[in-house]
């Protein structure tokens, strides 16, 4: 049997989603962003909603997300993606509007915008990447940084007296009547990836049915910021992040 005999449609087990562009991503090897981008692209492709999707990228590592997924994009100011998405969704109610934000963007500088967009029940999907650190600027403390966790701006570990507590913003958002589906996922194992994709698909389907705000947190790794290799990062996430940020549906 030769290679050409194997390349047949019936033998296809995996292909790159057509919506993912051929650009090489700027993400570090092992980073969760790449997997989540792929899942979002797969969901949009499978639902056949490329023409109807408008995406909003944040400031942070995913600022350049618009280079990688072939839908119309708006790049928002730091933290303001939910306000930008609010207007897009209100002005074009038939569109599938999603924001893609990190923890600094969503839970710190953009806390007001996300709370109020969710409280108004804006008909949007929010993908929230929580890796407990500012990746793009070089590993500073985030609102979700765990107590005792070392970062560039908490070099002796996060001290509650000095820095306050890590913010469980997803729990807060689940309290808001405007949100319909609030879930916390991860992408560290094949099973977790499949579950996460299901959650993202459900979120997009719910927006199609105009059910209000859909919030998908993905607890993620940042090997560069955490100064661990990808395998160790996953292990550290399971041991330290999951007890504080437990996976599962919070609502809907």
């Amino acid at each position, binding site marked *: 049997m030769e290679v050409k005999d194997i390349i047949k449609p019936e033998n296809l087990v995996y292909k790159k989603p057509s919506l993912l562009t051929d650009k090489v991503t700027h993400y570090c090897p092992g980073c969760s962003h790449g997997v989540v981008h792929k899942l979002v692209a797969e969901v949009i492709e499978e639902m056949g909603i490329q023409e109807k999707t408008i995406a909003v990228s944040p400031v942070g590592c995913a600022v350049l997300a618009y280079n990688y997924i072939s839908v119309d994009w708006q790049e*928002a100011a730091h933290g303001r993606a939910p306000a930008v998405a609010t207007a897009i969704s209100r002005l074009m109610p038939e569109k599938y509007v999603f924001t893609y934000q990190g923890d600094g963007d969503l839970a710190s500088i953009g806390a007001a915008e996300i709370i109020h967009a969710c409280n108004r029940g804006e008909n949007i999907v929010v993908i929230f990447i929580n890796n407990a650190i500012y990746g793009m600027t070089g590993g500073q403390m985030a609102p979700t940084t765990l107590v005792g966790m070392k970062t560039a701006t908490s070099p002796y570990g996060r001290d509650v007296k000095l820095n306050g507590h890590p913010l469980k913003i997803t729990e807060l958002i689940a309290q808001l009547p405007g949100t319909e589906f609030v879930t916390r996922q991860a992408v560290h194992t094949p099973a977790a990836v499949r579950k996460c994709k299901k959650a993202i698909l459900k979120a997009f389907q719910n927006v199609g049915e105009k059910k209000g705000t859909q919030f998908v947190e993905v607890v993620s790794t940042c090997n560069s910021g955490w100064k661990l290799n990808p395998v160790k990062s996953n292990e550290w996430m399971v041991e330290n992040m999951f007890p504080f940020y437990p996976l599962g549906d919070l609502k809907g």
Partner: protein
Amino acid sequence: MADYRLMKGNEVIAEAAIRCGCDGYFGYPITPQSEIMETLMDRKPWEETGMVVLQAESEIAAINMVYGGAGCGKKVMTSSSSPGISLKQEGITYIAGAELPCLIVNVVRGGPGLGTIQPAQSDYFQAVKGGGHGDYHLIVLAPASVQEMNDFVGLGFDLAFKYRNPVMILSDGVIGQMMEKVKLSDVKPRWTEAEIRKNNGTWATTGKTADRDYNIITSLELDSSRQEKFNHKLIDKYNIIREKEVRYEMIDCEDAEYIIVAYGSSSRISQKAIQLCRAKGLKVGLLRPITLFPYPTEIIRELADRVKGFLAVEMSAGQMVEDVRLAVNGKVPVEHYGRLGGMIPTPNEVVTAIEEKIINVK
């Protein structure tokens, strides 16, 4: 048939927005311009034209909603007053950087800080010279009547889309709060989705179709050489605007020996002041800039060759006067007269000022 009404300047902004086919208004309450959103909420234009009106959680959210709406190729606007406009500066520079068309109304009150709720013209520098970070300009229109509050909404949107640039109506608490007769604009329907795709589909996020690549609205460029090229593109655009869009009004300037330069409510007061001057035999004319960016530099330069002096009258500590001085370039004296903190000059004060600061100076 022409539709004449007696209305407040702020109310007219709302009515003009609905009539010119505006797609969305996003605002946050602040004195002295809250009547704009109040009028819109009372009029319920979503039932009439489909226009979206939303009270945002902050001025910051409101201007970012404008970014989102403008990015879709829609006619969207916000309004606020000085402290709120300061909050919007982040969004405004992103809008300028992403080359998005929109309308921003500033009904100016006195500052700095929380200042006063009374009228002032102390946001000239912020409006004309930048306001936010980076090299950019707004197109700035300065209404001097309730009629111009009506007219500049449609004009503002036309200029915004012509140049893909944010436009500011720089009004003040006097023009916003006073009532005058106004001829309202004819009703224009909102653009259809097909019209938006046709007019703005090359850049706006209308949804990626098979016939085009996907569109990206962004102000980010990490490659310095490309960012520099983009900066030059903006400079070229601003130079075209300087060449083509200067608007001003001249009153009694033909035989004038002295010129008052004033915009907005100060120009209304100065109009009375030049009448009082003429009654005293003083040949004083009024130049009223209508666009503050682009500024009527060329006409001031020409006037400087044949008059003996200029007085800039503005309710600020002396901001626009700097642009008069740049245009006059030392040929003749240029002085400033202003009241501050929400105080409004009287015509007699202006007459005294031009006599003491310009005419009677040996």
